[in-house]
């Protein structure tokens, strides 16, 4: 039960637990604690705090140190770099499938994406079917605030071939995503962007030299 005695004892508990109470008051407090479970339990909750006190450095109480400005951006850059490297590895895996049909390749890629570490859940991997023998095109589309980011990898064409990418939306909308050249031996994806939102994108068109290849995107992919 809480009494005036308790109040008095409790207000001394801080000094008691920190070892700052004069001898006489300490004895009074201990006598009260012996007979009062509630005050003993209060003491128990303060004891760990008192034990931590000597570890702290009062010079550090004033202000919390702030992380340097720009660290958030550096982390974002590191994440983007790592994601790009992962995507490259996955694109290469897609290419390594060689003679597999596009449907099988897409299925294997889907499984790999599901099991292969973090990737944006909204990222879409596109498989191009009906390509000439020896030629491969792989694309990964990612929604971005500005529209869609497109990662492309082409193989099996003449070095220096100009490639042009366009996204198609509903009602005949076509928004260009940019151009790149295939370079023999440069094992690197091209990163392009289009203002068309990924959610509205129905197809991706890739002109490789004079030939055009189309792959469905989004819901149309399954239709």
């Amino acid at each position, binding site marked *: 039960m809480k009494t005036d005695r308790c109040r008095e004892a409790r207000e001394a508990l801080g000094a008691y637990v920190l070892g700052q109470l004069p001898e006489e008051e300490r004895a009074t407090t201990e006598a009260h604690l012996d007979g009062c479970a509630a005050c003993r339990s209060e003491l128990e909750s303060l004891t760990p705090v008192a034990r931590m006190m000597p570890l702290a450095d009062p010079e550090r109480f004033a202000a919390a140190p702030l992380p340097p400005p720009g660290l*958030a951006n550096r982390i974002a850059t590191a994440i983007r770099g790592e994601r790009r490297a992962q995507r490259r590895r996955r694109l290469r895996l897609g290419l390594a499938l060689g003679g597999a049909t596009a449907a099988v390749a897409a299925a294997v890629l889907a499984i790999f994406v599901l099991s292969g570490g973090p990737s944006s859940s909204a990222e879409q991997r596109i498989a191009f079917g009906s390509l000439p023998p020896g030629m491969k095109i792989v694309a990964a589309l990612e929604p971005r605030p500005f529209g869609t980011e497109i990662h492309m990898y082409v193989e099996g064409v003449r070095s220096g071939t100009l490639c042009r990418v366009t996204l198609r939306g509903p009602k005949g909308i076509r928004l260009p995503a940019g151009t790149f050249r295939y370079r023999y031996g440069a094992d690197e994806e091209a990163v392009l962007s289009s203002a068309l939102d990924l959610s509205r994108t129905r197809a991706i068109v890739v002109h490789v030299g004079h030939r055009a290849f189309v792959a469905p995107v989004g819901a149309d992919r399954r239709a």
Partner: protein
Amino acid sequence: MPPGALTDERDVRTAYAAHAGELYGFALRSLGDRGLAEEAVQESFLRAWRAGQRFDPQIGSLRTWLFAIMRNVVIDLGRARAVRPGVAEGGVEPSVEPLEEALLAWQLEEAMRRIGEQHRQILVETYYRGRPYAEVAEELGVPEGTVKSRVYYGLRALRVALEEIGYED
């Protein structure tokens, strides 16, 4: 994937805005070096993002999860530093103990920043500066009993603040 999973850059930015300050404070306290602390924060968020799909807010808070990751990062960085020539002394394997102490110290310092100025001041004067209650009472123009009760309420406030920042007995 559980809702709240930390899988894209935007999730990481949100988590950074909410928790980077505390994580940096803890890393700096444990590692004692701004460069290393910065490295620790970056590595923690990268690890969190890599494992982001496994984070489930139903199991524990994001903060607790990030601190668990940071703790491992600090251990790894501390070890890496200890094996660098010139830093290790006598080839002693760094124990985990100092990290636990650093965590407790950081928690108490963080709690001190969260309690009222009046309580913090009284604890600094009487405990850290070791000044007699009577002297502090006179300086503040309050009865000695008030100093004593403020010490008690200060410790209680610390206890509450510690629990807020995740301290458990």
